[in-house]
């Protein structure tokens, strides 16, 4: 029971990342009809927002280290610490949450530039062209990031207070050795909040209602005198923000490097297809489902029966879904069924 429960939890945080990225991907497809291979890059850019904020916060000066007496040793002390002492240390410790504030405007900007600058010209071209050009864009952005930050992963820790593990086993009465990292729990809660935010934005605001109407019948909404294009651009920016935030919060879990986006992109595409192209709830459900499935299949008991299953389970599910139910779990009837 414990084992199953812990695998369920392990699947949740990965599933949360899949769901967040797939949500943006499917949002872009549902509104603009764009297959965006550069979406994984947005995730990566979010993670590198954190890296940048961390780097800015820890700009250091060289100070003579007085604890070493027999030669002149220097140590680096961030300016924040010399200026504000304890407060400064705390600010650096909270680099990840702080980056959220910076990541939102940056990602909005990136999203709008990307949509207005490039993707707008590809509405009328076929999906193959869209895939190709965004694939090229992804390479370009990755290489630029690599040029400035290097090719190695840059680890950044979560705030001290939540860097340990929570003894949820004791809390739930399931035994002492059932522990779960705090940060992963936070990641899960955070993703639920973001997903809830996006859904309520689309569901309960007039703006969101118009967007949904545009997804159903773009021409009709246009005839009613609404500039649906502008709203779709905003939605694309929103998708970029969601992917970016997913990246920001993911940095303490996996140290970001320049091609982390590509790894997630392939998986989130599979997630989108399983959930149904253009279906928002589909993307979320499929994201969590595949995350949990992956985590269950990496259990030793399962691997003994089917070796290597943990490596391919997601793709197997995708193949099965595409063949048996091409519109995906929750896809709309008649959308992209062939």
């Amino acid at each position: 029971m414990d084992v199953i429960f812990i695998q369920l939890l392990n699947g949740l945080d990965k599933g949360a990342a899949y769901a967040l990225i797939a949500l943006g991907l499917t949002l872009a497809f549902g509104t603009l009809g764009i297959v965006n291979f550069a979406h994984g890059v947005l995730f990566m850019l979010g993670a590198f927002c954190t890296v940048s904020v961390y780097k800015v916060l820890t700009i250091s000066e060289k100070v003579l280290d007085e604890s070493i007496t027999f030669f002149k040793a220097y140590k680096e002390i961030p300016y924040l610490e010399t200026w504000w002492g304890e407060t400064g240390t705390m600010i650096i410790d909270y680099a990840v949450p702080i980056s959220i504030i910076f990541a939102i405007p940056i990602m909005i900007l990136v999203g709008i530039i990307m949509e207005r600058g490039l993707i707008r010209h590809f509405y009328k071209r076929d999906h193959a062209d869209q895939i190709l050009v965004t694939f090229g864009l992804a390479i370009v952005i990755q290489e630029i990031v690599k040029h400035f930050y290097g090719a190695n992963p840059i680890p950044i820790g979560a705030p001290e207070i939540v860097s340990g593990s929570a003894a949820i086993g004791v809390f739930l009465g399931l035994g002492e050795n059932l522990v779960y990292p705090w940060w992963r729990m936070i990641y899960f809660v955070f993703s639920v909040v973001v997903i809830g935010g996006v859904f309520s934005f689309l569901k309960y605001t007039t703006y969101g209602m118009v967007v949904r109407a545009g997804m159903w019948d773009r021409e009709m909404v246009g005839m009613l005198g609404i500039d649906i294009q502008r709203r779709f651009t905003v939605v694309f920016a929103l998708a970029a923000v969601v992917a970016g935030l997913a990246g920001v919060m993911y940095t303490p879990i996996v140290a970001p490097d320049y091609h982390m986006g590509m790894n997630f992109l392939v998986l989130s595409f599979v997630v989108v297809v399983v959930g149904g192209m253009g279906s928002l709830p589909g993307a979320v459900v499929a994201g969590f489902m595949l995350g949990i499935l992956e985590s269950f299949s990496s259990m030793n008991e399962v691997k003994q029966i089917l070796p290597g299953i943990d490596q391919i389970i997601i793709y197997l599910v995708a193949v099965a879904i595409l063949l048996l139910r091409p519109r995906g779990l929750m896809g709309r009837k008649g959308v992209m069924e062939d």
Partner: protein
Amino acid sequence: MNSQSKNKDIRLMAIFSVIVLTAPIWLEPLGASYPALLQKFAIFGIFAIGFNILFGLTGYLSFGHATFLGVGSYTAVWSFKLLSMNVIPGVIFGTILAGMLAVLIGYVSLRRSGIYFSILTLAFAQMSYNLAYSVLTPITNGETSLQLALDDPRIFDAARTASQGLPSTELFGLKMSGYPGFYFCAVVLIIAFYISMRIFRSPFGLKLRAIKSNQTRMKYIGFNTRPYLLWAFVISGMYAGLAGSLMAVTDPLAGAERMQWTASGEVVLMTILGGLGTLIGPIIGAGVIKYFENIFSAFNENVLHNIFSFLPDGLENVVVQVAGLFVGSGWHLTLGLLFMIVVIFLPGGIVEGIEKIRARFRRTSPASSSEKSE
């Protein structure tokens, strides 16, 4: 008319063969005339020709062709390990096994079209890649990649090669390293090009093109498109397997990174850059990409300083800084940009570009001559 076009084809073949076989000579001034790079040109040319048969003719964008490349490589190396160092069985087995895998993957993937087809092939490619790294390690040797070893059985010529350390690949005694290796690849390339030309000109090729332009209509007139698509997929998979086994011929080593999906992306790039759906385009694309990869990634700051030394000092440093972004390890940036530019402005690739320029000259020259005659 028919015999005329046949003559044209013969001429094309002759010109192509001469160009390929004399490549070491005319590539000399470009600094690309050394065997390792020439072999790459030929191998990736074959890979791109094959990919073009699928993507160029039918419009089905596969993102998993690197799988067949990898399978071809692995099979060829295994053939070297188990049977003989002769390259012929290696190449044949590599091609056939890749073709068999293509039947399997194609049969499933071709049930869907458009983006779903791309995702399906991508899914299969990722599966094979992940498996090659994990469970299939006994076959693929995982991260250390599959290599020849001294104690390989090598049934047919163990006696001959046992005494001399690690043997090298050979064609009936002719060692397949350096220029002989290139000429072997070149001959295979010419044969591959000929087959691809025949496919382009055949009724089969015409049907594939019809599928690309309007598959629904084809189905409405009572035409079952699936077997033709499957054939195209298998043929292009076999081309990829052939290219993979040639890689193993020139360097008997096979690693799983050849199967990564970015490798599949590379062949898409080559085909698009050269000219999708044209005969010669993919080879040009493969050549251009491999050439610039080699040249650009060899550049470093010193070389750049030499090139821009004619500029004033301050300006020189700025230019070198900016240019440094695009060369050396940043070569992929150039590739990505080039790719975007081609997709945005020149969807027909280099071949279309040349054609456009030609058409412009043709349009102006008769006009000017008629003016003269008046």
